[in-house]
C-alpha cells in the first residue's frame, strides 16, 4: 500500500484494522540466487538495490534476530560526509545524496532533517586542520564552511563561551546539509520496499555454517534448515569476524563496545549536530542523544561502562552548563567492528561468491544507502563498484590504508603521562 494522507484517512475511518504488514513474513526456500546474511540497514539496502537496480529476484535476507535490531537500531543517527580523504568523501557524500530522496523513493518517512553538522576547534592548529578539511570538501562539491567564534555562537547560543571557559572554542566548521534521520525507519523502509520487490526477509534465522566447495561458497546451514546459494553477502557488522571465520577467513577487525546515551526529552535547544568535546544532537522527541567514545577492549557484551557515561556527560555539561539539571534517561551499547584505518571493508573476499560489507565501526549508519547501491552493483557484476575499490580487503597488503580516525568519531584519545 502506498503511504499517503488518503491511505491514512481511509484507515482511520475503518478503525486502523486494515494496515498491511510492513514486509512479508517469508518462509525460507531451499535455494536462492543471493543470500544476504544480516538484516540491518546494509543488508536490507543491498537487497533492495539488487532487486530494483539490477532486476534480480530470488534473494533472501536472513536475520538472526529482528531486522534493524543490531547497530542500525543503536547508532546516533547522524548523516554527514565531512571526511578527510577523497575516497571517503566521495563515498559518504554519495550516500548523503541518496538519503535526500530516500523517503520519497521508499515511500516511508525517514525524517531526514538536514540542519547541519558542526565541528568545533579548540586551538589555532585545529582551525588550520579544519581549513584543510573544508577545502577538501569544497573541492568535492560539498557545502562546507569555516566559522569563527561568532559564527559558532550564532548556531549555538547556549554554548559556554565565557572567556574563562577552560577549553575556549576558537571556531569550527559546518557541513550545512548534514543532519540526522530516524534510524529504525531506514531498516523498516528498506525492508518494506525490498519485500514489495519480492525479496524474502526471514527473521530469527541464524546462520550456523557455510557450505564451501573448493574455495567457492555453495550454501549455508541455518536454524531454519539448509539453503543453497549462488552468492552470499555478509552484512553482519559486529559479527563479521565470527561469521567470516566460518568461511575460513580471518579479517583485520577488532570488535569494541560503543555506547550512546539519551537524556529525558526537553524543548528544542540544539538544531545542529555537534561534534566537539561531546558528540551530541537532539532528537525530534526532544532527547539529547550523546555518542560515547568506544570502550577500548574487545567486547561483544553490548553492555558498556559506567565511566564512559560519566565522561561523556561531563563533557556535555562543560559545553552547555545549563544541561546540568537535566537527567540521563537511557544508555545502550552496540558492537562495532573497527578496522585499523577506520574505513570499511567492502567487496569481494578470497572465497568465490562470498561478498563482504563490514568494518563499519562507528560510521556505518550514514553509509547505508551508498553501501546498498555499491554492494548490489558489486554482487551483480562480480566486480567492485568504483566507489568502493579503495575499501577492499587488499589495501592492507598494499599499504593503501585510508586513515579516517580523525573524522570517524572514534576518539581513541591518548593518556597523559
Amino acid at each position: 500500500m502506498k503511504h499517503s494522507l488518503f491511505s491514512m484517512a481511509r484507515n482511520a475511518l475503518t478503525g486502523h484494522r486494515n494496515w498491511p504488514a510492513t514486509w512479508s513474513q517469508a518462509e525460507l526456500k531451499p535455494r536462492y540466487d543471493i543470500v544476504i546474511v544480516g538484516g540491518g540497514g546494509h543488508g536490507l539496502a543491498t537487497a533492495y538495490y539488487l532487486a530494483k537496480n539490477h532486476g534480480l529476484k530470488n534473494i533472501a535476507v536472513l536475520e538472526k534476530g529482528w531486522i534493524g535490531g543490531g547497530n542500525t537500531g543503536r547508532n546516533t543517527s547522524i548523516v554527514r560526509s565531512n571526511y578527510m580523504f577523497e575516497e571517503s568523501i566521495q563515498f559518504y557524500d554519495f550516500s548523503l545524496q541518496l538519503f535526500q530522496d530516500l523517503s520519497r523513493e521508499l515511500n516511508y518517512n525517514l525524517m531526514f532533517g538536514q540542519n547541519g553538522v558542526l565541528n568545533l576547534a579548540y586551538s589555532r592548529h585545529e582551525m588550520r586542520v579544519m581549513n584543510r578539511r573544508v577545502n577538501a570538501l569544497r573541492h568535492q562539491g560539498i557545502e562546507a564552511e569555516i566559522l569563527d567564534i561568532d559564527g559558532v555562537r550564532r548556531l549555538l547560543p547556549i554554548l559556554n563561551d565565557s572567556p574563562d571557559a577552560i577549553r575556549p572554542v576558537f571556531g569550527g566548521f559546518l557541513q550545512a546539509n548534514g543532519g540526522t534521520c530516524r534510524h529504525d525507519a531506514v531498516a523498516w523502509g528498506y525492508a518494506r520496499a525490498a519485500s514489495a520487490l519480492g525479496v524474502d526477509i526471514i527473521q530469527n534465522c541464524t546462520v550456523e555454517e557455510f557450505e564451501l566447495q573448493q574455495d567457492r561458497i555453495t550454501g549455508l546451514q541455518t536454524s531454519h534448515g539448509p539453503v543453497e546459494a549462488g552468492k552470499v553477502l555478509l552484512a553482519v557488522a559486529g559479527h563479521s569476524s565470527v561469521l567470516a571465520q566460518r568461511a575460513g577467513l580471518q579479517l583485520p577487525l577488532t570488535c569494541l563496545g560503543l555506547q550512546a546515551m539519551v537524556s529525558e526529552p526537553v524543548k528544542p535547544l540544539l538544531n545542529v549536530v555537534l561534534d566537539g568535546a561531546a558528540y551530541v544532537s537532539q532528537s525530534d522527541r526532544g532527547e539529547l542523544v550523546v555518542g560515547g567514545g568506544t570502550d577500548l577492549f574487545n567486547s561483544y557484551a553490548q553492555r558498556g561502562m559506567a565511566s564512559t557515561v560519566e565522561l561523556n556527560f561531563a563533557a556535555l555539561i562543560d559545553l552547555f552548563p545549563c544541561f546540568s539539571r537535566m537527567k540521563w534517561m537511557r544508555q545502550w551499547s552496540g558492537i562495532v567492528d573497527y578496522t585499523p584505518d577506520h574505513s570499511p571493508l567492502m567487496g569481494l573476499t578470497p572465497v568465490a561468491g562470498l561478498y563482504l560489507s563490514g568494518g563499519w565501526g562507528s560510521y556505518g549508519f550514514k553509509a547505508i544507502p551508498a553501501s546498498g547501491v555499491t554492494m548490489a552493483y558489486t554482487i551483480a557484476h562480480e566486480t567492485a563498484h568504483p566507489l568502493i575499490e579503495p575499501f577492499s580487503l587488499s589495501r592492507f597488503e598494499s599499504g593503501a590504508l585510508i586513515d579516517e580516525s580523525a573524522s570517524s568519531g572514534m576518539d581513541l584519545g591518548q593518556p597523559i603521562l
Partner: protein
Amino acid sequence: MMQIDCPWCGPRNQDEFRCGGQAHIHRPEQPEDVSDQAWAEYQFSRINPCGLHLERWQHLFGCAQWFHMARDTFTHEIRAIYQIDEDSPGGLE
C-alpha cells in the same frame, strides 16, 4: 567496569588499565624476508572471537606492567591472568 587482578598490585578498576588486544602475536624475526601478505597478517589480522580471548593488558595508571589475560569477550568473565612471558594456561575452554 571490570575488576582486574593486576599480578603486582592486586584487584583494581578497569579504568587503570589499557588493553593491548590479541596476545601471542610475535613480530617476524626478519621482516625483510616476509611477504606483503604475511606482513599485513601480522599487523592487522585478528581472531576477534565472541567468547574466550587471550589478550594483553597493561596496568597503565599503576605499575605500568604488562600481563596476559584470558577473558570471555561476551560475558567479560576473566578466566585467567598470567605473566607476559608465559604461554596460555591450558584447560580454559
